[in-house]
């Protein structure tokens, strides 16, 4: 029954249909109520549909599945080509999982232009899912860039005091990177006469060209992930974004960079990836230690978590460029668990922000007295972020380190220093917010999380623990694709080693 349906397209564009429905609602109370409900149901339904991907996905093969391919811009030979492999299917699920949570989290906290907000989120979902499914470079680029627009609006319209500065910083940073990627895509098209991703993966380019293309793609992905030193947009964007904006930004948008490395840089430019590994390692190590130290002295909760995100993403880039099974699987796993955990942490900040309208750590203290349930929830995600075994955060981090240790003990050693620092800033944050005496008068009436907030957190809690105790299903679904990626990479490298005349010497 499922075979005939364009499944990925349905999942991708269903939110858009919801968005259209909301767009025609009136601006009165009923319309606002309708838009909230419609957004929630649309995103929930999309998530349920996407679960079919999880169950229907054939394990043990690296080929693209649920493939759809129809001619699109025929004069240029560009197709509307969609499909998922073991890597992208997980990110599609992550996106569809987080969107309803975001909408539910915004239920009361967004009070202006609610209709537009919901539309923005649903459009964003379409673009995110489409990006992870796209198997044509042009299609990919459109989705990839498109994501910028709703996110720009979410920060710029519903953000905090310096929202305009943050929104522009975010926009300019990412756009600058993307322009270079666009050039690279055009160059590939001109050279190979195709923009079809699976086709390009099977072609090989000369090393010289790979290096240039790699750098161009790198510019875009490094900003997205973000890597040091192009990370400074992230703390500002997070601080100014509304809670749900931060959730989706940390949960999914950062992963676009890591996904890009896995989809483009590594398979299409294996020689360049190999060549630039030391660069990536250096930048990532700096990111891990540098941002962990910076996180230590933050006074704004969101900024602290934002910096911790940069450190965690440092592990992702380290893992990807370790280019072995544990490294890459660890990196993907780290992205997934960070997607869940950092999203949850931003939601935790959102809970108290909604009540007190401040994110300054000093304004809190002793919350456990009034908010025991909240404290437990926050504790769990804090520990997951620290990478405590038994939570999702541990598996990815540890696998990355195992992968790194196999190729370079010094890099593994330095990265592990970040793990120690990570514990320091998170515990310190938790202590200042939750523990201590509750002395401030305005905190004395603060209420524990309500039913809606519990509903938001429960799936995240379950997933965090599940990913820590029983990660096998997630690792299994990505296994074949990762192995395929690495095999091809090694073949490409050994082809050069066997035939050094093909390219300039390493």
């Amino acid at each position: 029954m499922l075979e005939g349906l364009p499944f990925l397209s349905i999942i991708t564009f269903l939110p858009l249909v919801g968005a259209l429905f909301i767009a025609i609602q009136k601006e009165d109370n009923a319309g606002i109520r309708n838009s909230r409900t419609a957004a929630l149901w649309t995103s929930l339904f999309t998530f349920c549909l996407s679960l079919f991907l999880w169950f229907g996905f054939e394990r043990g093969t690296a080929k693209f599945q649920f493939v759809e391919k129809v001619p699109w811009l025929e004069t240029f030979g560009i197709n509307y080509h969609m499909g998922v492999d073991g890597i992208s299917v997980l990110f599609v699920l992550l996106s569809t999982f987080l969107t309803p949570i975001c909408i539910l989290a915004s239920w009361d906290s967004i009070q202006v232009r609610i209709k537009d907000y919901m539309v923005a989120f649903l459009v964003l979902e379409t673009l995110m899912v489409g990006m992870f499914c796209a198997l044509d470079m042009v299609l990919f680029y459109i989705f990839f860039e498109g994501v910028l627009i709703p996110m720009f609006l979410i920060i710029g319209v519903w953000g905090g005091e310096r929202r305009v500065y943050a929104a522009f910083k975010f926009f300019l940073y990412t756009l600058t990177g993307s322009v270079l990627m666009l050039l690279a895509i055009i160059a590939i098209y001109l050279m190979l006469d195709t923009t079809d991703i699976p086709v390009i993966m099977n072609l090989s380019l000369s090393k010289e060209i790979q290096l240039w293309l790699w750098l161009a793609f790198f510019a875009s992905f490094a900003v997205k992930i973000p890597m040091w030193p192009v990370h400074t947009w992230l703390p500002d964007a997070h601080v100014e974004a509304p809670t749900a904006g931060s959730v989706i930004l940390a949960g999914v948008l950062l992963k676009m960079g890591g996904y890009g490395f896995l989809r483009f840089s590594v398979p299409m430019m294996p020689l360049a990836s190999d060549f630039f590994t030391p660069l990536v390692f250096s930048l990532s190590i700096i990111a891990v230690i540098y941002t962990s130290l910076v996180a230590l002295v933050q006074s704004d909760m969101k900024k602290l978590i934002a910096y911790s995100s940069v450190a965690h993403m440092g592990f992702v880039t380290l893992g990807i460029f370790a280019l072995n099974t544990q490294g890459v699987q660890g990196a993907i796993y780290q992205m997934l668990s960070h997607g869940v955990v950092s999203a949850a942490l931003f939601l935790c900040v959102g809970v108290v922000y909604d009540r007190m309208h401040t994110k300054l750590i000093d304004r809190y203290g002793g919350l456990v007295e009034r908010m025991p349930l909240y404290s437990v929830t926050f504790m769990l995600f804090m520990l997951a972020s620290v990478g405590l075994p038994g939570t999702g955060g541990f598996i990815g981090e540890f696998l990355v380190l195992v992968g790194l240790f196999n190729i370079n003990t010094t890099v593994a050693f330095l990265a592990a220093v970040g793990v120690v620092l990570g514990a320091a800033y998170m515990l310190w944050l938790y202590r200042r917010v939750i523990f201590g005496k509750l002395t401030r008068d305005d905190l004395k009436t603060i209420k524990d999380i309500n039913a809606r907030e519990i509903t938001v957190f429960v799936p995240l809690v379950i997933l965090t623990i599940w990913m820590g105790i029983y990660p096998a299903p997630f690792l299994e679904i990505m296994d074949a694709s990762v192995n395929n990626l690495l095999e091809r990479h090694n073949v490409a490298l050994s082809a050069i080693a066997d035939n050094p005349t093909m390219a300039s010497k390493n």
Partner: protein
Amino acid sequence: MLFYLCIFLPFIGAAIVGAFGSVLKDKGSQTITCSAMTLSFVMSIIIFHDVALNGNAQTVKIFDWIVSGDFHVEWALRFDTLTAVMLIVVIGVSTLVHFYSIGYMNHDPHNPRFFSYLSLFTFFMLMLVTSDNFLQLFFGWEGVGLASYLLIGFWYQKPSANAAAIKAFLVNRVGDFGFALGIMGVFLLYGSVSFDTVFSGTPDKAGVTMEFLGGDYHALTVVCLLLFVGAMGKSAQLGLHTWLPDAMEGPTPVSALIHAATMVTAGVFMIARLSPIFEYSETALAVVTIVGASTAFFAATVGLCQNDIKRVIAYSTCSQLGYMFFACGVSAYAAGIFHLFTHAFFKALLFLGAGSVIHAMSDEQDMRKMGGIWRDIKFTYLMMWIGSLALSGVPFFSGFYSKDIVIEAAFASKSIVGDYAFMLGMVAAFITAFYSWRLLLMTFHGSSRADEKTLAHIHESPKIMTVPLMLLAFGAVFGGWAGYDFFVGDRMNEFWGDALFVAEGHTALRDAKDVPIWVKIGPIFMGISGIGLAYWLYMFRPYYPGLIAKRLKFTYKFLLNKWYFDQLYDRCFVKPAKYLGHSLWKDGDGTLIDGLGPDGIASALRYLARKASSIQTGYVYHYAFAMLIGVAVLVSFYLSGLGK
């Protein structure tokens, strides 16, 4: 099923009480966790009988944990003699502490939370001792660390408790950093992290080298030393010990269970468990011996000058752990575990006894404000005597058997590090006895230094607290005598089975029985003379200690400030980290990256825009002229053929 229940009952108890504590109230929470623990204890005895005494070692697989390429880890429960011994110790002490806490935490408003944490700790500790691979060991390891963090910070309103909790977690993180790298090294070396595979593969790896941080070293030594860093953190060995005394901020039952009897011994357990690897690295063993012996001495000296009753016992724990380590270091693992076993009883007894004192003194912990109270709390007094006698190694108390064999083994190892350990062990035995009696006499004898109000309230603890004390005292008296044959005596080989491994040439434990008579008597002599000196000083010359402290002002200050480790670390790590973090943020991110990057470009553009606007003159012909130039450029561009 038995195995599962034994391990998971504490978890079930913790989960139920954790989730429904507010409904169950104090009574319900206590009933559930205590009965779960009691049941678990009964099962642990059955398991001990089956596994250790009948020799039925076995492993129960649960399910796959991580499968990533060759990196394959399972959840599994491993039961051999070493595990069985630890089960008895952990569950036994934990059960008693659970019951004791019913009385001790009587007035605390957060009973459900406390009992949930205690049971949760027990579960993680059980996961640690039953692990079948390095990663599960690490899981339990960090899990007990978490429980310890939660319990140290149990009174979350106290800033000092919060600080101590964070410190415990972070110092342990530093240790775990080494541990984790060690596990990675094991995987690199063996392609597996399962104990069986690694242990059976070790003989082949004896000569292999490995690249680490740019150098090429003996692989097993690198791995063992990294793992040992983890053990040092958890067992508060010299350098990574700073968290343990501060951990006394937690409720006293916690100190007895976690920071004396069980968790802090995890490092010793780890070395014993990994004896098949450590035995192949002489360097690693030597390091273990040196660190252990130095800690035994260092902590004993600091214990001399502390005034907080719990801190004295904490440093004593630190010191005794040192003994266990150097026993392992000279390949006398069985002796180390034997000392771990007896120590669990008498140290838990001492802590719970101290708890009883503190309870009686209305939460006073400073010994300078105690004194002369033995008549009011005779039972506690007796218990403290038994604990101190056992700790000082007075003959026929449990500590005597285990401490003697440890010191003798060090002597019998006939190596330089062994001699070092032997000498420091002897000196530490003297100091141990001295500070134990200093504690006893300062607390119970002399004139009372407490205020009226406290004195009026002094009372013996209720039954629920004294009965556990009695049971522990029973262990402290007879534990050594009963265990000697099995642990280190004639039935040793049969008892341990394959749980411990000792290489061919390492005969310290066997030779320990044939040491000269002065070595055999030495520790006893040291212990008794330490007691004698303390007795003389504090009973008959009570003004002497103050005088000595004044005379040796520098030494006294040095010891009182715990060799200045905390100050040193604060200066070297904590302050620089914060300073660095701040300057990286403001100067690095702010001035440099943003200044040159987005903000810089933005202001440059604004500048250009201002310049450009001055060109805007408002005259139409200027614009027309500019347009013409533009068109001209474009046209020539196309004509030249570049635009194709």
